[in-house]
Structures are given as structure tokens and as C-alpha cells.
């Protein structure tokens, strides 16, 4: 479901331009409002939808999901740690979904640069950064005797 912008609501702040991982949110040269330059390339990550402070970006649902005439809108409330979606079908029915944005408190994730760098021994293993501690296990499972770590 690619995104599109309500130009009367957009104030041209460029938050969506910054956050779009596909670099398809750009600024319209005539009105200086954001627009999706290539919906076919939209990853449908909805980063722009959630980041827009004006709630100016909407989602164009696929026909098998909701027939034409519907709307899919989102409200992101960081202070409440929730993200709400409202789907309005063309016959007036509504579906509302509220989800937590994340399951850990804001600010609780440490900055990567706060961690000590890997030791030469850690470089020599096949474990990724912070494994196995971050997985809350003592060691990664191995095929004992067949795989040499």
C-alpha cells in the first residue's frame, strides 16, 4: 500500500524526505509540499506516514484489502508509546487498531558507542555483536564436534 500526501495538510517540513529509506519522498517544485515521486518503489514501511507531524500522509490500500473509496490513516503518539490505525471502508465501516510502538521504555536503548569495542578474540568468532548476551542465553547452539568455532 504505497503512500501519498494531502497537500493541504503538508507544511513542507521535510521529515518524510529525511526518513524515507527508498528516497522517494521529495518536495514538489511547484508548491513546495512533499510527494511520493514513485509509488511503485515504495517499500511500504510507512516511516513517512508515522513520522509526519501534520498527519498529512495517507496510505492507498490495495483493492483486495479495501475497495476504492476507503481510507487508511495513522496517528503516532510517542508520549503514549502507541500507534493507532483507522481503516474506513467505503460503506462506512471502521476498523481501529492500536499497537505499542515498542516494548521497552523510550531512552532505554544504549547508544552503540557507549559499549566497549570488540576484542580480537571476539572478532575471531562467528558471533554477532553482543551475542550471546543480547539473546539472553549462555552460548549459541552448535553442531558439537562438527563445527569448529
Amino acid at each position, binding site marked *: 500500500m504505497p503512500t501519498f500526501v494531502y497537500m*493541504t*495538510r503538508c*507544511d*513542507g*517540513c*521535510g521529515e518524510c*524526505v*529525511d526518513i524515507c529509506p527508498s528516497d522517494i519522498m*521529495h*518536495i*514538489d*517544485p*511547484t*508548491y*513546495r509540499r512533499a510527494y511520493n515521486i514513485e509509488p511503485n518503489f515504495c517499500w511500504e514501511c510507512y516511516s513517512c506516514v508515522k513520522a509526519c*507531524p*501534520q*498527519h498529512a500522509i495517507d496510505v492507498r490500500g490495495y483493492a483486495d484489502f479495501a475497495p476504492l473509496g476507503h*481510507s487508511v*490513516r*495513522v*496517528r503516532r*503518539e510517542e508520549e*503514549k*508509546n*502507541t500507534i*493507532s*490505525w*483507522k481503516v*474506513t471502508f467505503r460503506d*462506512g465501516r471502521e*476498523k*481501529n*487498531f*492500536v*499497537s*505499542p510502538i515498542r516494548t521497552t521504555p523510550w531512552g532505554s536503548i544504549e547508544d552503540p558507542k557507549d559499549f566497549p569495542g570488540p576484542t580480537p578474540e571476539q572478532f575471531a568468532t562467528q558471533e554477532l555483536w553482543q551475542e550471546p548476551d543480547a539473546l539472553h542465553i549462555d552460548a549459541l547452539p552448535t553442531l558439537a564436534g562438527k563445527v569448529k568455532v
Partner: protein
Amino acid sequence: MFTINPFAEISATVSPDIMQWYIIVMALFVAGGTLFDMIHKKSAKYFFRDWGRKRAKAKTPLGGGGMASLAIKTAVVDVLASGEFCKVPRRIAHLLTFYGFIGYLVATVMMVFQYATPDMATPAWLPQLWYLGAAMVMFGGYWFWFFIRVDVAKEENSPFRLIRADLFVVSLLLSVTFGFLWGLTQASGSADWSTFFLALYVLANTVLFVGVPWSKFSHMFYKPAAAFEKKVEEADGSTKMPPPSDGSNLGAH
């Protein structure tokens, strides 16, 4: 220097009637350009069609008092305080250009229509307001142009790249800048520079007011209407936005 009415100073070479008619014609261009824009884009037609549809779906229709209250809120928050802008620097820059332009415009009209010749002593505050308004527009405008403008700040384009969306802000900035320079050079007695900047001032003003159908000038009329409609749809329940979460209603509803 800042207490001299520059329009009265040139009244010996440019008739006050010409200056007054120029302002009237420019005002007509703004009105006509806005109407043309509205008819050409059918923005009013779509606005009122959308307005009717949403009011028909209102869950809690508003009365006259509710509408008036929202209209006042829109005027105070969105128009007078530029509440639309979510970023503080953009809001400050917009407020500077908004109030600067109003002061500059009011001072221009009063100086041209009421104090058009040197024998009508212009109160010192009028030219001061004119210069102050121009300075506010220049400060807010150039700050926006070189640092805040999304083309530069987010798209990383050159600040000197011009697109159609720039027509309004560029002509406005050039208009006040050339006006400011014209006033200064005239007060300092530099006749050649004064004439040069006067010509550029007139040219920039003409582009600003005649270019309304192609520029963003008329946004000052449309944006309050859009902000009012947004407030009304949130108040009467016709909005398609999800309601604010209370933090405990997780799941599907």
C-alpha cells in the same frame, strides 16, 4: 534616515497619483489572481464539496457557537501565531515575514495615500515601521531561504537553485530588499543608485503581485480555510484520523 518618507521624496518626479494608482492596480491583480487561481484549480469547488460530505458524516454536528469558537481559535492559533508549523525555527521565520510584511504594507499604503508629498509632514513612526517591516521580512525570509527551506535543509539542493515554488518568496524578498536599499540610497543622496534600486523595487513588486496565479501568494487565503476545516472535522467526528489513544486500548476495535 529611517524617519524620511521615501515616497514623498520622489513625489516631485513621480506623481502621487501614479503611485496611488499603481497600488490600486496591484491590489486588483492580487484579488483577480486569487479568483483566477480558485476558478482554474477549482479549489473552492472541491473545498465546499468536501465540506458538505464531511458535515453529512458528522457524529456530533456543531452549532453556530461551536463553529464560531473554532473560527476564532483558527484565527488566533493558525493565522496570528502560525500554529501550523511544527518546527520552531520555521514558525519564528514565518512570524517575522508575516508581521513584517503587514507592517511594511500598511506603512507603504499610508505613506503613499496620506503623506504623498513633502509638505504633508509624515509622522516619524511610519517610515520607521516601513523599514522595520522590511528588515523583519528580510531577516525571516533570508533565514528561511538559506537555512530552513526544505529544498536546502532536507533535499540538499543549492540555495541558489530556483523553482516555481520560489516565485513568491523570491519576489517578496527582492521587493523588500530593493525597497530598503532604495530608501537608504535616496536618504544618503545617491541619486543614481536610488533610481537603480527604485526601478528594481517596482519590477520586483510587479512580479510579486501580478504573479499571484503562478505563485504561492494566495496561500495566505487558502491556509486558514484548510486549518479551519481540519479543526471542524476533528470536533464533529467526521475526521478519518484514528482517535487519540488512551494508552490502554491496545488491540483491534
